[in-house]
């Protein structure tokens, strides 16, 4: 208990120092709330129009080009800030997969988009037994606190 209280005090003091001790919020441009141009079809390649470093996200645009590498590791970047993501993606986009009670698989809803990397293709009630045994951490991100009638049939 003492350790927790101590840690909380340190965190609180740090936050206060940052809030009141630092100079005013930066005046450098942020990410616009909405991407100003219509996005072309296909995987997004920021480098078609942008160079160097993104405002707001403060990382090179190349980092955010939607290659298979980026799509598989997008969480790493999202945990440092969502503002660049939200310039192009509405909240509904994230919640398609990161869902609470979703009943339709993403690849069923978007059956007309076979090009997209969507989880759970095929009869995944069979294959998930293997993937779940081998790498349950990958399931947990979306299903750890999810009420799904299909889960209930076996996981009681």
């Amino acid at each position, binding site marked *: 208990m003492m350790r927790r209280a101590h840690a909380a005090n340190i965190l609180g003091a740090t936050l206060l120092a940052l809030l009141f001790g630092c100079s005013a919020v930066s005046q450098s441009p942020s990410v616009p709330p909405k991407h100003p141009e219509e996005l072309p079809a296909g995987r997004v390649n920021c480098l078609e129009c942008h160079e160097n470093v993104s405002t707001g996200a*403060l990382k090179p645009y190349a980092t955010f080009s939607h290659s298979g590498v980026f799509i598989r590791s997008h969480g790493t970047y999202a945990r440092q800030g969502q503002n660049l993501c939200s310039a192009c993606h509405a*909240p509904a986009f994230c919640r398609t997969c990161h869902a609470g009670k979703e009943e339709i698989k993403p690849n069923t809803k978007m059956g007309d988009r*076979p090009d997209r990397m969507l989880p759970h293709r095929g*009869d995944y009630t*069979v294959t998930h037994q293997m993937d779940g045994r081998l790498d349950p951490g990958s399931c947990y991100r979306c299903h*750890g606190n999810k009420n799904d009638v299909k889960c*209930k049939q076996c996981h009681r």
Partner: protein
Amino acid sequence: MGIRTAGGILRKNLSPAFIVIVVSLLLPALSAGSAAAGDVNLSSKTYLLGYERELAGGQTDRYAPLYEYLSADAANLGGHPLSMHFYGWGRADLGDQSGTGKTSGEFSSFFLEYQDPHGNAQGKLGRFFLTEGAAMDVIDGVFVKGTSSVGLGVSLYGGVPVEYTILPGAQTADSIYGGRVFYVKSGFAEIGASYLKENGSTSDLDRELYGGDLWVRVAGPVELTAQAYYNDSASEMASQRYAVRIVPGAAFDISAGYEAYNYKGLFRSALNPAFVFPALDNNDKVQTIFGIVDWEFRPAWTLEVSGKNIRHDNSDPGDANRGEVGLRYAYNNKKDVAGISAAFVSADQDENEYQQYRAFASYSPEKLRMTLDGLYTHYKQAINGTNNAYQVVATAGYQVLAALQVSGNLTYTQGPNFENDYAGLVRVSYDLGFSTGGKK
């Protein structure tokens, strides 16, 4: 509806389907009065599914669930850098009961957002999906974040986690709060330290995470990322991930790294029994080494190769290797893609081993769109007397108006669970955007 959600009486008494309908009617009116006409996006997606299931005893149930998904985003409210976002869905069964109750739904997101045009100051109020340091949760609450002129920043959040439980006897958590302090040097590095505290319904479900994250561009196109989270409630590391990525341009991207997690640390607050004993041995630990290459070796042609070595502390389920190779070709101004892929899982235990092959293509002349997607899976160990599974999905759609598309799926499945199964889906998408600019 047999579902416990965190939060108050209002949310428990109002059906999500009802909220979806009310908000869909109110939001255009609200936004028309307060936002510029150019900053409103409305989206309605309606799905009617049709399928049969043979139950024990010879009974056949016929399902026809009708789903309505609504999304509304209004920006520049009142001429200020304020926006409002809504997303939710509802289901009504037109045939036999397909889920928990004849109706269901979810009030997924509804929040007000402030995003300053300068300095990355932002705030959110309402229900939203939060990814910030140790947090990757949906909360009913508030989030604020700001960066100072010297690159130091702080974010804070607090509220009630939006969770659902099927773990017998468990209630959802009462509160969640935390924050992140960070330093960012534009184009070079970002380093952060984060804290998260979730008060579970019992102390067994408490979660207290201390985390660190790092992104650094060490040289030119080479970047390193690191994330590590310690769960003090479980006195265990929850997860850690370290990767190096080289991305010299849009045509080539390669990454490799190491990831690990402890079941006890990561799954401590899980409310789905699939993640707790006896479904899993909570003393197990997973370590993976992974690598992935995405290479557009010719314009429109992309090769993707990935590999993963998964090691468990416990002999059951044991270790495994997964490899995947895929080739894609984009055409018709990138509106269409064709691809083939193969994935192989070799494992210590036969029950975990399988191979999967996939081929797909789309064709979109003018207002038509047709796709075909085939998947074949071979399981090393027979399941329900068979080693093979097949699925073919064919779709066809027509763009009736600029904002209205009607399409349908026909899915055929054969495998351990199905001798011959046909399922249909009709999809009506209506996307109305009074906006210039991109939202997907």
